[in-house]
């Protein structure tokens, strides 16, 4: 009988755990949906230009990649936007893959991401409207200073990666379906190489962790400029400037958003004069050069 009681208490316990597990997963969506919709969404027919900042608490959700958050770019731009418009922007910084998923599920109002192919798909599938180019930054191929695969003098990213694969030099990949990961995969496929084997390390983590792992393992990796410059590591930039290493960011409105106007205001801010100027200036003080190059235009 004691056994029966114990077993049933186990069931109870596991049930509780199960409930906890179930409720924790969609928490992202509840967090974003709790924003009271009615007062914050005036009919879409109202004129788009920003109304005077009012006291009412308007909030929108921006799903973006970790790079814009980790580099500090958003901290430089969003306070200014909030001051201008009175709209609070809640940022969910995840990989591009998840950011786009958040948009598809209607859990965000605006996307700021960098994976052109996935962005175009997002728009053609009807999930997004009003897609703009915002800015671009660069990718580097970085690696240990002694450069075991000898890629320093190689001009194109494709040839550099081919040489790494040929020499089977360690290469750490993000492997997390992020924009950077997609960029890396596109270079491999351009070089017609299917990277696999013990030299190819798929970290499944963010850029910072991946860089650290490359440093620890004396390996190569593909990194965005901003994250690389913000870390002090014993890795050197070996290949840069190739056209395929440019990294354009896009800003897209989620079609199912309940706050199209506020979303549009944010897009106009990023692509407008002030936003573009702030983007161009960002990082100059700390790194001596801007981390992002503004190039706003409607697609």
């Amino acid at each position, binding site marked *: 009988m004691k056994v029966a009681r114990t077993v049933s208490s*186990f069931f109870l316990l596991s049930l509780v755990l199960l409930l906890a597990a179930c409720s924790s997963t969609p928490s992202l969506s509840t967090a974003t949906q709790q924003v009271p919709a009615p007062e914050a969404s005036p009919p879409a027919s109202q004129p788009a230009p920003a109304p005077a900042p009012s006291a009412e608490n308007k909030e929108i959700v921006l799903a973006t990649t970790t790079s814009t958050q980790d580099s500090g770019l958003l901290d430089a731009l969003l306070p200014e936007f909030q001051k201008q418009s009175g709209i609070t922007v809640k940022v969910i910084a995840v*990989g591009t*893959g*998840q950011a786009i998923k958040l948009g598809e599920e209607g859990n965000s109002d605006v996307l700021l991401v960098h994976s052109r192919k996935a962005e175009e798909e997002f728009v053609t599938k009807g999930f997004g409207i009003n897609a703009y180019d915002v800015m671009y930054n660069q990718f580097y191929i970085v690696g240990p200073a002694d450069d075991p695969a000898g890629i320093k003098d190689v001009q194109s990213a494709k040839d550099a990666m081919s040489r790494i694969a040929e020499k089977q030099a360690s290469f750490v990949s993000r492997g997390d379906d992020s924009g950077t990961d997609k960029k890396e995969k596109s270079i491999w496929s351009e070089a017609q190489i299917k990277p696999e084997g013990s030299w190819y*390390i798929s970290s*499944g983590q963010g850029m910072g962790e991946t860089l650290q792992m490359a440093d620890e393992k004396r390996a190569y990796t593909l990194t965005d400029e901003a994250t690389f410059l913000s870390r002090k590591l014993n890795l050197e930039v070996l290949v840069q400037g190739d056209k395929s290493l440019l990294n354009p960011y896009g800003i897209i409105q989620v079609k199912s958003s309940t706050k199209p106007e506020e979303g549009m205001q944010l897009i106009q801010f990023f692509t407008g004069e002030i936003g573009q100027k702030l983007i161009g200036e960002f990082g100059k003080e700390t790194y001596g050069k801007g981390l992002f190059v503004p190039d706003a235009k409607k697609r």
Partner: protein
Amino acid sequence: MMTQDVWEVIWLSLQVTTVSVLIGMLLGIPTGTFLGLYTFRGKRLVVALIYTCMGLPPVLVGVVVYMLLSRYGPLGALGLLFTPEAMIIAQIVLVTPILAGLTMSAVQAKERAYWETAKSLGASPVQMMLTIVKEARGGIWSGVAAAYGRAISEVGAVMLVGGNIEHHTRVMTTAIILETRTGNFTAGLQLGLVLLAISFLFNSFLMAGVLNQMRNGRR
């Protein structure tokens, strides 16, 4: 995620956890027994430390082990960072205090009843300790179950020192994080349920065994 990969991830989780709990038992059970039976100067401090360490934040353990094993750290020459061995080291640090602490309480509970008897029968200290451990096995087993549950569901430390490398150090918990990050909530949830099922099976198995033993012991 492909099925083969899922099995690989589950298998590695079980391996890492089992090895760490086994090593943790070798370290923690003798320590706990000793603490439960003997008094000495400074024992209170040691006990307080063990109880504190039972609730060590895994991430803290992860950072410390990371710094030790890093190529730029004191044990960097071993090249252990981002290997399953590193994960096992971190897990041992986490589970040993649990095993020591729970063994200690279990032994203390049985101490009075058996210590004198064993002594009067002329048992050597080692024999006496073995007798007490045997008598206290119910409590010790629940310590093992707690340690196993903690280790298999732990994510912070193994992520830091293991690195979540595919086919190498990716375990269930880190795979769940990755799946969620890439938007595969379903896959993450499925893996989470597998984790839950393993925990449940392990605990029921262990508890059934313990209860059985206890009942037999009473007869």
